[in-house]
């Protein structure tokens, strides 16, 4: 059913018109049913909408711009060519997608993907966040995650000493690019 050309997609779905989602800030976005199937939440909401006979599905917890990006990604996933991407190419694809995102935006995106029940995208957002924090210093992590350090200086020193081999090669990159 799904082909790589969006024109053919539209032709196939003339019988199944695209769904309309309305974001929390009133933005209306179209999504084809076959694409929307990736989201269990949308499918659930669809059931309810069909009962109440309206045309628009409110996705009131998600803002328009995030929803738009998510739909874009979901569209990519339904393209046949996407499934043939090798591991490295997929990684590059997501790196490009998340390029220059701040970590807070990735988190927000991940929460939205979780809310909408889109497993693959949720996993990728978590992977991106893991990649963003892995080479950062402890201080950076605390700052970004707004965590209070509840260790005493002695406890922290002990902990660092035990794991000091993990602190060697301190090429930590605390660049503010991710915040």
């Amino acid at each position: 059913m799904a082909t790589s050309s969006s024109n053919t997609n539209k032709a196939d779905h003339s019988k199944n018109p695209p769904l309309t989602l309305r974001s929390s800030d009133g933005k209306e976005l179209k999504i084809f049913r076959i694409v929307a199937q990736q989201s269990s939440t949308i499918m659930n909401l669809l059931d309810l909408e069909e009962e109440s006979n309206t045309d628009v599905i409110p996705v009131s917890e998600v803002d328009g711009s995030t929803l738009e990006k998510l739909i874009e990604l979901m569209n990519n996933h339904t393209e046949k060519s996407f499934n043939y991407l090798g591991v490295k190419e997929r990684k590059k694809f997501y790196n490009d997608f998340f390029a220059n995102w701040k970590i807070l935006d990735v988190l927000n995106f991940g929460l939205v993907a979780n809310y909408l029940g889109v497993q693959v995208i949720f996993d990728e957002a978590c992977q991106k966040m893991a990649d963003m924090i892995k080479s950062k210093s402890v201080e950076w992590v605390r700052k970004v995650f707004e965590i209070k350090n509840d260790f005493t200086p002695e406890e922290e020193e002990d902990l660092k000493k035990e794991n000091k081999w993990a602190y060697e090669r301190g090429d930590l990159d605390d660049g503010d690019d991710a915040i």
Partner: protein
Amino acid sequence: MIEMGEASETESRTLLMSSSSVEEESLRRSPSPIFGRGSCGGSRNTSPLGRMGSRNTSPSRIKTKPRGLDEETAATFSKFVQPDIRMEDNIWAMLPEDLLNEILARVPPFMIFRLRSVCKRWNSILQDNGFLKFHSQVPSHGPCLLTYWKNSQTPQCSVFSLPLKQWFRIPVTFLPRWAFWLVGSSGGLVCLSGMDGLTFKTVICNPLTQKWRTLPSLHYNQQRQLIMVVNRKDRSFKVIATSDVFSDKSLPTEVYDSKSNKWSVHERMPAVNLCSSKMAFCDSRLYLETLSPLGLMMYRLDTGQWEHIPAKFPRSLLDGYLVAGSKKRLFLVGRIGLYSTHQSMKIWELDHSKYVWVEISRMPPRYFRALLRLSAERFECFGQDNLICFTSWNQGKGLLYDVDKKAWSWIAGCALQAYNSQVCFYEPRFDSVIY
């Protein structure tokens, strides 16, 4: 008498897994239950989060209820209940534990240790058995190279992570003093051997968790060629002891099985030729190279019997290494024509049906010249999962050949030292158990 232990006082505190957490059986990474429209009624599990959730409650979900959806069944997080939050409010402060686990599980193993210092909550999460198991289920953070070196005093173990292009020096002072030789690594476990006085002993450890255990002694106390194999499905491992290192006499093959914690004695290898130290294990068979003339012997684990494989070795092959590939593939790697101007390094694969070595690749001359500057220089060769690694100590370089992609590449950022002469592939895993 079984020796085992945990790292000494100073190292024990954080690197050990806390034993107080309960093992969670449900943490297998089964496909997350996202139901499409066709799912039957009742509570709809729509959240990718919750794979780490507790056993029988419905999988947890971040509490951001969409308007218009049925009242969700009371989903609780395994650790604490989150008040209803709007997504914009203070996300970080209320970061649900499930989401944090999903992020941290994807952080490479070596980076986890540093993150324990962030705060007490993170320290606790990152040492929790359940989390570590979850972490180990995320696709491998390897391959890594592990090197082991011991002078008379201190053992040194360094791991090079290929994906991170970084060296980590792992503390291994917990190992017994006699652990001298690196046998190999498989499934996150590392096996070493040595002479404790007059007794030949073997030890198994997981460098990440710092847990270790000396195996029972062999029936025949001689310094033997060993190979370790891990079965990840049933979480067990075996160690096979073949020939006497000094090859004076032929000894019965002994096999250690972690399930019974015993060595069993099997057939003596037919005293055909001199045994080399070159061995490879694949498809539940152990292959061993014999010298003068070059030949191949095979030991079957299921029958405990040796067999001679009549595969003719390439002429004028020197330093032939046996390397196991994935599934049943067996490779032979070595130099041809040592003293001729047309010296080259080649890779053959065994055709199991015809018992013939088929040439599959040849190292391009520019790599060969860069790897071995002097024609008679020594090199090490080992492999895992269709990746073959060449290391040259004098040149301090590592070269990789990917059999599937037919691609050669230098290992970036990996400056090897002359003393790293014991090296193998290693997969850092928190969940590999030494029992």
